[in-house]
């Protein structure tokens, strides 16, 4: 019997899933941190900062810790900014679920209990609300709610957790056809950059890790009203690697991230490359020692696993499936739709798209770059990317319907380029912050009125560690890549692409002050073609 991970917002009225989740949490919290099956050790596997935990009252300073909390090992194991992000978190959730299930069964609960997920579906406003069962401090009988933690400050710090559709877009996930990028390319993949070992430079986050993963962490955690987000004790638990696992909602968030991975695998697009929407078959990813994950078991021992062993969620070792992994509203052929938009006659578009799918491997070329670092703060910050004429002309050439249709003349078919805005070397004194990035917004326009110019959302989750000059990333910060193909197509069609520069506007969605030192070191525009 395969257990079902259910949508937390679709649980029937008298459903006991969350009751048993709470019961298990209460038990795990009574176990000492030295026990690998305790709530505390499970959270520390994701990340721990012992002083911060002591300050927040989650760690007794007198306790002798079983692992060095400053080192990566069994604790601080979490894989971010890497192609191991998804398999590691799946193995982690699987081990967590097994430990909870063991407790639940021993307490007389259901043997088919499974961790639910919080599907913050951008098209369903009611699903964006924070799950009610987690919000109240006390239960009906006056006892403490095990699903509640104090340190959830939300978007503005008053404890209201509000998530808007633009904070958690998913369309960009389905467009990312490849699971991983090579480290010598601009990161545009779904699952992250190939990394030799874990925790390489902060440049390797895949689309799913960037969004919606990061913004949800920040918009739930946030920073306490009147507090300083540079000070860790003022931040919500979900806002930081080192504390996120303590919050019971963390597990429902990552359950959804894991579900989105399953959804991505179901996407089928015509004319897609053969490895599109498939997991890597690369041995380095599947089972190399570098990608070995050490996980606890209910009896307190540990075992080692790799990506290969977590690919099938219905395998007895994981034994779960999701209630719903459907991906609504996907065009059968986004490429044909795009060719039509660019002015290729519908009759030709299919033939052309077919010819493109056999085109040569992709090439990446820089088209433009910003002149200086941009400090993001206050209501909005404007900046621009200067374009190189030669590269921009090449880009325009690939967008021209006429040149695409010249196929009959025996020319090699060239598909229209995809275009990306890379925000590089994003450094910050805080882990908390979410901002929207608009491209080519009309002068003086209200960004909210121009969703067609919204390139994407960026969160600072993990930025502080990546910004420390003495840290392993040597201060190189985060890199986030946003696809701006549609915006550039629209500029091309409107005749606006014959320009020296493209304007970019950053609109903070959470309070970001000058004191937070949020800088985007460089913006680069890349074209990627075949």
């Amino acid at each position, binding site marked *: 019997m395969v257990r079902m991970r259910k949508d937390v917002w679709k649980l029937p009225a008298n459903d006991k899933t969350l009751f048993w989740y709470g019961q298990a949490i209460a038990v795990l919290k009574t176990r000492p941190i030295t026990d690998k099956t305790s709530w505390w050790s499970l959270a520390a596997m994701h990340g721990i900062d012992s002083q911060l935990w002591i300050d927040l009252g989650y760690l007794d300073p007198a306790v002798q810790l079983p692992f060095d909390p400053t080192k990566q090992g069994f604790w601080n194991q979490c894989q971010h900014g890497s192609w191991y992000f998804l398999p590691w978190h799946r193995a982690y959730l699987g081990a967590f679920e097994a430990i909870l299930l063991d407790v639940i069964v021993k307490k007389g609960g259901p043997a088919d209990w499974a961790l639910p997920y919080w599907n913050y579906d951008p098209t369903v406003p009611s699903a964006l609300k924070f799950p009610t069962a987690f919000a109240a401090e006390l239960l009906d009988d006056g006892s403490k709610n095990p699903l509640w933690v104090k340190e959830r400050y939300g978007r503005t710090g008053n404890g209201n957790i509000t998530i808007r559709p633009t904070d958690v877009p998913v369309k960009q996930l389905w467009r990312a056809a490849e699971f991983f990028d090579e480290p010598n390319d601009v990161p545009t993949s779904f699952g992250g950059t190939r990394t030799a070992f874990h925790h390489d*430079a902060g440049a390797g986050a895949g689309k799913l890790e960037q969004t919606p993963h990061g913004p949800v962490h920040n918009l739930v955690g946030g920073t306490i009203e009147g507090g300083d987000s540079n000070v860790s004790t003022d931040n919500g638990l979900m806002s930081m690697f080192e504390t996120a696992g303590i919050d019971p909602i963390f597990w429902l968030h990552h359950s959804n991230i894991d579900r989105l991975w399953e959804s991505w695998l179901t996407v089928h697009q015509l004319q897609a490359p053969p490895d599109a929407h498939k997991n890597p078959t690369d041995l380095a990813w599947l089972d190399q*020692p570098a990608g070995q994950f050490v996980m606890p078991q209910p009896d307190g021992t540990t075992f080692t696993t790799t990506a290969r062993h977590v690919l099938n969620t219905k395998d007895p070792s994981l034994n779960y499936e999701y209630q719903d992994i459907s991906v609504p509203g996907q065009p059968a052929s986004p490429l044909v739709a795009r060719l039509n938009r660019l002015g290729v006659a519908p009759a030709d578009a299919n033939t052309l798209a077919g010819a493109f799918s056999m085109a040569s491997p992709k090439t990446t*070329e820089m088209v*433009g770059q910003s002149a200086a670092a941009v400090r993001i703060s206050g209501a909005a910050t404007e900046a621009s990317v200067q374009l190189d004429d030669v590269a921009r002309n090449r880009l325009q050439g690939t967008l021209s319907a006429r040149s695409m249709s010249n196929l009959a003349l025996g020319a090699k078919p060239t598909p229209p380029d995809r275009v990306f805005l890379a925000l590089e*070397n994003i450094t910050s004194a805080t882990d908390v912050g979410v901002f929207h990035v608009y491209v080519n917004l009309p002068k003086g326009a209200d960004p909210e009125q121009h969703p067609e110019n919204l390139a994407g959302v960026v969160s600072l989750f993990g930025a502080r560690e990546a910004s420390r000059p003495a840290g392993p*990333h040597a201060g190189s910060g985060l890199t986030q890549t946003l696809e701006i193909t549609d915006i550039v197509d629209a500029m091309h069609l409107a005749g606006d692409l014959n320009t020296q520069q493209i304007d970019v506007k950053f609109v903070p969605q959470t309070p970001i002050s000058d004191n937070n030192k949020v800088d985007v070191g460089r913006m680069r525009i890349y074209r990627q073609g075949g």
Partner: protein
Amino acid sequence: MTWRIALPAVTRWPSRALLAASLAGWVLLPLLGHGAQSSAALCLSYPTLADAPRGALAALSVADDTMLAALSWIVMVVAMMSPLLAQPIVQLRLRSLTRRRRRAVALFAAGYLAIWIVAGFALVTASAAITRLAEHLGWPALAITLTIAAIWQAAPLRQSALNRCHRPPDLSAFGLAADLDCFGFGLTHGVWCVVTCTPWMLLPLTTPAFHLPLMLMISIALLLERIAPARPAAWTWRILPGQKVAGVLLRSMQWSVR
């Protein structure tokens, strides 16, 4: 059973051009007199190269021994260091306009080599001092350099220099500013590279008898080390460069032949 060895992809990074440059360096080195000398055959020792077998030297018709010594030092740097430059060059090309890529790499290489030439003089002076100290103390020079290298390897400062070797460059895209930035990136990358590698480079300099094999071993160790992920800068017991990676590679090979 498959005999395909699944090395981490980063080991496949060095481009053919870089590997060819390195190989050419290794082939040239013995011709330039390395390893064939009986006396203190230092990469950049002023007097000794004059006594070296003349065949290859004559062919090059370099009269000035210092010039030749400098040349052989450059060849050695090219042989040992070019595989280490795969990552920075890939990052540099990605951040350069297509038509500027060659120029960007050339400027980077010039800056990088300039630093190593300066470092060469300092290293020769240091190795001469160590040799004299060794004679004075009656210890083998190797013991002194090994101690220095081991302590340096354990030091947090070295790890933070190594981490900076992984830092992607921040470059202007256009005009003179771009040229200066590429050259500057070569300089700064050279500095972090020198800081990371220096004590190990003293080893072959102070042990002339095993000069070439030592250099080869050190290059491989430094290359393996470069593949490892960045660590926080702290004192460590890992005093052999690349020891962690070597272990993982070995396990990975066993894994792939199972």
